[in-house]
């Protein structure tokens, strides 16, 4: 071995790796920077909190924000309990058998199904078969099922991180299986579960394809009043004003993209703050 030569090689090799990393990271910063720079100016009280006017060329994006809020709330209310319970089953109850293997496979596949296929599924099951119509409930249930894998996986990791000894102590005190899970395991996994919930909120808020045929409306003059109403939603609204309507001020587009990205990023940042605090505590 020639040490000097190898040292050079290492420098070169690491240089290439650094380059690859920069090629990945710089555009990310560029995209976020661009949207912040161009979207920030469009933000105002009335942009956020008023109804669109003049064919969405004026006014604000309030109904889209409200619609997204509805979708997030309902889909999480549906998916969180199921997802958390599924994770509890897998981590606390399931034996290492064929069924568990099948569940794991199903989760992986659920995570891999194309978002537009979720849209078709929602249309077929909720809108048509169950006659929910094009409505918030149809869209939210579709999004909820789509986000299940995120909740299950993060919750499962949180449960896994709870030391075995906690369970052993609880069992040795005579607690039943469920009591152990509820009092000795779940409380400690709570921050992790919260992280999963927040991450899936971000996911739900940003998805377009699953809501195309299940809930999204181009324009509604009034806010939705019940779960069987259609709703506008931020990601679809961005698609509409980007590709459908002429004469939209550029600021409106970037402003909408900014709100959407801010929403999603705030969710992600708070998730990682919770995660890192939790880790420090341990």
């Amino acid at each position, binding site marked *: 071995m020639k040490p000097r030569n190898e040292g050079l090689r290492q420098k070169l090799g690491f240089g290439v790796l650094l380059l690859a990393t920069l090629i990945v990271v710089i555009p990310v910063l560029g995209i976020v920077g661009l949207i912040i720079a161009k979207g920030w100016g469009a933000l105002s009280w009335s942009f956020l909190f008023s109804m669109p006017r003049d064919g*969405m060329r004026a006014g604000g994006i309030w109904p889209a924000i409200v619609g997204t809020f509805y979708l997030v709330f309902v889909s999480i209310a*549906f998916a969180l*309990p*199921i997802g958390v319970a599924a994770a509890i089953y897998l981590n606390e109850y399931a034996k290492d058998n064929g069924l568990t293997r099948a569940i794991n496979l199903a989760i992986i596949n659920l995570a891999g199904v194309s978002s537009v296929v979720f849209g078709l599924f929602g249309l077929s099951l909720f809108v048509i078969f169950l*006659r929910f119509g094009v409505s918030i*409930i149809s869209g939210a249930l579709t999004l909820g099922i789509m986000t299940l894998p995120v909740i299950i996986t993060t919750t499962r990791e949180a449960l896994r991180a709870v030391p075995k000894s906690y369970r052993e102590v609880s069992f040795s005190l005579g607690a039943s299986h469920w009591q152990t899970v509820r009092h000795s395991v779940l409380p400690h996994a709570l921050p992790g579960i919260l992280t999963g919930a927040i991450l899936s909120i971000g996911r739900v808020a940003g998805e377009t394809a699953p809501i195309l045929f299940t809930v999204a409306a181009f324009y509604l003059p009034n806010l939705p009043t019940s*779960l069987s109403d259609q709703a506008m939603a931020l990601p679809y609204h961005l698609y509409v004003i980007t590709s*459908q309507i*002429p004469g939209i001020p550029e600021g409106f587009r970037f402003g909408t993209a900014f709100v959407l990205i801010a929403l999603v990023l705030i969710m992600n940042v708070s998730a990682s703050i919770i995660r890192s605090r939790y880790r420090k505590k341990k």
Partner: protein
Amino acid sequence: MIARFPSRSAAEPALAAAILVLFLSACGNRGGGTGARSQALQIKGSDTMVNLGQAWAEAYNKLHPEVNVAVTGGGSGTGIAALINGTCEIAESSRGLEAKEIEQARAKGFAIREDIVALDGIVVVVHPSNPIAAVTMEELRELFLGDIRRWKMLRGPDWPVVLLSREVNSGTHIFFKEHVLRRGKSKGPEEFAPLALMMPSSYAIAEEVAQNENAVGYYGLGYISPRQKVVPVAKDEHSPAIAPTIETIRANTYPISRPLYLFTKGEPAGSVKDFMDFIHSPAGQKIVRDTEFVPIQ
């Protein structure tokens, strides 16, 4: 640690709430998707007309705040299908009804009523730097069939042709296909060249034409802007090339024009009738002109 955690697992009430939500929404919708909700008007259909529909909806909503008019696009076929399926009250369409749609409606026990509310010209547009001065209908046909691949073949510069079309569910797409590609016949073997780009909206066509000197596209009169160049069209090589304007479209001298329809389920009544009356009123027709279509009155 245990004491701090609520005595019931958070999952239980949340699950209960989710189930409740499911039931409520299921029950709430049992009445069927049509006019069960009071004073809600669903308008759906043509993307060409979605801006027009929305302008009507906004103006009408000012006069009648109690009526909730929702406008969605998706294409003429979408709107008519929704009207037949009972998920909207008014379908906006940039084409007439097809025989099978009339049949589908009859199978559901009603006739669709058609109402011409405005006129529209389909404008052929290129990039402002494209020197081409006029085209004939036959040239246009060959262009979109994919037989003319370079602008040179149309007395233009030696640039490649990039064809821009609307999606298949657009009434504009179908109208252009039948009127130009198939020379006015609704049935025929001609189709848009597969290499034509399918754009999601007229606006998307306008944007691409504005920034691409190779592109040619078509859209409704309402989208004309200085960022694209309008190409006058001649009926045949012996006729003069006519530019699309409100006058030439009304006089029917511009070769590619069409009526715009609103379809309703049978004779309109109640809020649907009121809305249709508004559209035919001077105020409603002024909105037609303001959104740069051609009013009928």
